[in-house]
């Protein structure tokens, strides 16, 4: 069922527990619930790491028989036998439920999409979860190159197709976006036969969200960027050129202390940290 788990060049050492967080996505054109694209890529990465041992976790309403269930089942259609649903009411905060789940069950790697396709979609959840668990987080992971009980070698995606190799200690949270492998096809049979395991969990109302008001986005006209290029090569250059960084500074040899101070200074000057 999962041939790619073996052909993957990242044999996960036995006993490592890998989990992927999955949410109910929303198709950008039709608005219909579906497997969220980035989450599905996280699942794909998980399957390549450990085949069907990957555990899938979702926090949200139970939703038996509704279209949300069908959307979640799409993840099972990728070849995983079961999915844990941490029961919550509509509008509850997923964070405490997930944090307590992983504190109880333990995990070595948690994979997630960078940002949800509906709801707040702030992209904060993986950071807050890593913070609660006290784990490091790596964003925008393109591939996990190698992994053992202690640490993992990771390829992180940077803008304009660049990649950076990182080493991170286990356990950690990793988020994936468009740079990761596209998710495999959903097979209908397994998606319907897979098991949705409901579980009681912490159900805290998401205060921040409940204060929000949701309205459909307004289409705004886009300003076209006119490029005066004479040749195809020019146009290519214009399209791929790095924006000229202003006032930036590359710090390589300085001590961690100095680097951290520089970041903090920046955050203070931008008014983010007060």
């Amino acid at each position, binding site marked *: 069922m999962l041939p790619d788990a073996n052909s993957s060049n990242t044999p996960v050492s036995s006993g490592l527990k890998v989990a992927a967080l999955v949410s109910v996505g929303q*198709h950008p*054109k039709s608005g*219909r619930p*579906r497997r969220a694209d980035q989450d599905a890529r996280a699942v794909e990465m998980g399957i390549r790491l450990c085949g069907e041992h990957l555990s899938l976790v979702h926090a949200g309403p139970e939703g038996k028989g509704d279209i949300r269930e069908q959307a979640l089942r799409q993840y099972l259609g990728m070849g995983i036998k079961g999915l844990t649903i941490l029961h919550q009411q509509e509008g509850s905060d997923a964070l405490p439920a997930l944090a307590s789940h992983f504190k109880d069950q333990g995990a070595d790697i948690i994979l997630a999409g960078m940002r949800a396709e509906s709801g707040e979609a702030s992209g904060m959840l993986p950071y807050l979860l890593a913070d609660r668990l006290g784990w490091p987080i790596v964003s925008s992971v393109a591939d996990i190159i190698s992994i053992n009980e202690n640490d993992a070698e990771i390829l992180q995606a940077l803008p304009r197709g660049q990649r950076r190799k990182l080493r991170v200690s286990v356990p950690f949270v990793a988020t994936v976006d468009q740079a990761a492998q596209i998710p495999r*096809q*959903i*097979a*209908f049979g397994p998606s319907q036969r897979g098991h949705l395991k409901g579980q009681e969990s912490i159900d805290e109302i998401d205060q921040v969200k409940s204060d929000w008001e949701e309205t459909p986005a307004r289409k705004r006209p886009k300003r076209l960027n006119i490029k005066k290029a004479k040749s195809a090569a020019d146009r290519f250059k214009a399209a791929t050129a790095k924006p000229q960084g202003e006032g930036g500074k590359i710090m390589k040899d300085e001590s961690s202390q100095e680097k951290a101070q520089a970041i903090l200074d920046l955050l203070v000057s931008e008014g983010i940290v007060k």
Partner: protein
Amino acid sequence: MILDWLLPLLLAIALGLMAIGAIRRVSLWRAGQAEPVNIITGLMAMPRRYLVDLHHVVARDKYMSNTHVATAGGFVLSLALIILVHLFGLDNQVLSWALLGATTLMFTGALFVFKRRTQPPQRLSKGPWMRLPKSLLVFAVTFFIVTLPAAGILPENFGGWVLAVLLTAGIIYGLGEMVFGMTWGGPMKHAFAGALHLAFHRRPERFDGGRSTGLKPVNLAADSLGVAKPKDFKWNQLLGFDACVQCGRCEAVCPAFAAGQPLNPKKLIQDMVVGLAGGTDAKYAGSPYPGVEVGQAQGSPEKIITEGLVKADTLWSCTTCRACVEECPMMIEHVDAIVDMRRFLTLEKGETPNKGAEVLENLIATDNPNGFDPQSRTNWAADQNLPLMAEVKEADVLFWVSDGAFDMRSQRILKAFVKVLKAANVNFAVLGDEERDSGDVARRLGDDATFQTLAKHNIDVMNQYRFKRIVTTDPHAFHVLKNEYGDFGGQYEVLHHTTFINELVKQGKLRLDQFKGGNVTYHDPCYLGRYNGEYDSPRELLKVLGIELKEMERSGYRSRCCGGGGGAPITDIPGERRIADMRMEDAKAVGAEVVAVGCQQCTAMLEGVVEPRPEIKDIAELVSEALIEEVH
């Protein structure tokens, strides 16, 4: 004479072994899934199905049909009489003379079989099939001579022991091939399996000139979906595979085979036989799948077909054009088998190749294969002022627009058809954004779940409105609405636009000018022609336009596919040529400057052929250009 006691004994042994072989063969078929058939009706109908329906197909090759009538008729008659005369020893001159006549008839037929086999066409399998004419001759001659004394022509003890030995050898060889071989896998197996296949055919509607082309629904609640192993086929599908005579007519017409894609319908059916009986394809003596070596395939009833017997690429090469089914004298259902196996790959393994996964996901999320916003389905008609069913609730004609709505080239066809509808003052309406993809592509790609969802949604929507008939410019939607929605409660009268326009012309509702252009040929879309038997309306319409068709060699029921069906452009299995290019060669060969079509998919495929080439025009476009509009 020694034969007096030896012949009955040999006969009894041969018949006994045949019976054992028959039981064994039947048990191989019975490994398949249950499928109810009417045994008595089937057996009673069998002779007629053989003589009328099967011969209707065989008769396309006159030489072979006469040959087969003589040989097979002579053989069946001979065998019956041999049993009476030589086994039961009925001493009756009339019977003996009749037997002489029957063996002579068989002999004559066998001579023609022999002649064809001296220079067999490429499509015929060789191997054991090459010895069959000799076996037929030996059988006929031997039993002719053996019967001479019984008929009173020669004395009892003529010829002496040399002849007796020769005759004994002939009897053993003849009975071995013709009686024993029939149920033990020799070339004569086709007679035994073929007769039962005709009796228990899975689509009995096909006999007596009927048509049955809609795919059968998958039970989505089953433990495993589609056909993974040979034993997952229905038992009478297995029986059908066993009836193949390896005549290769299917191979000769298959567009994928001709394009050098790894598919040969004859080999596929033979591989299914390997699967049901267990073993390898080493003994196969016909053309291979292009580019795939023979002898490597292995199968058994319990083994997954795509793991060693047939490559998935073979299954995905098929355009579901049905040319093979149309041509098969044994009325074997290749397309059913291929889609059954695709269903397993898509529904259980999630392995639809190339763009397949993306298209299916789009169909699920947006109801159209390209993932366009479903709310933009009617944008093409912004300037057409079309009545919407949601507003009018009722109309004479429901115009089924299909996914051509999203494609700029197809929109020209749609607009041309709307112009014709308006010119004839037809009371029609469209579903607008309520329409969804018909499910055709999803189904052919093996995703019956998505097909069923789309079908049920469409049926629910249509059930809210009142209309007399559906008309569509898309033969695929036409076929699905007409022949495949019935299983889900959608029974409609559906017409292809060429049929409908032809009707309007006959009723005098359209005034048409004459076509002014060059040579025109007409390309029959598979889903209009072979799937639904509509060959005449398009031709009548073109005639009304004053066009004298330059028919291509392969037209009508033998039309060659454009390459666009069955999701083939989506799975895109590489070959040596493109099917559309070959079809365009057909058109160029008759000097066509315009290829008239009746399908937007054909239009897309044929227009994809590099210029210079004939122009492609849908019949709706030709008609709308010829409209004489009343000036008020």
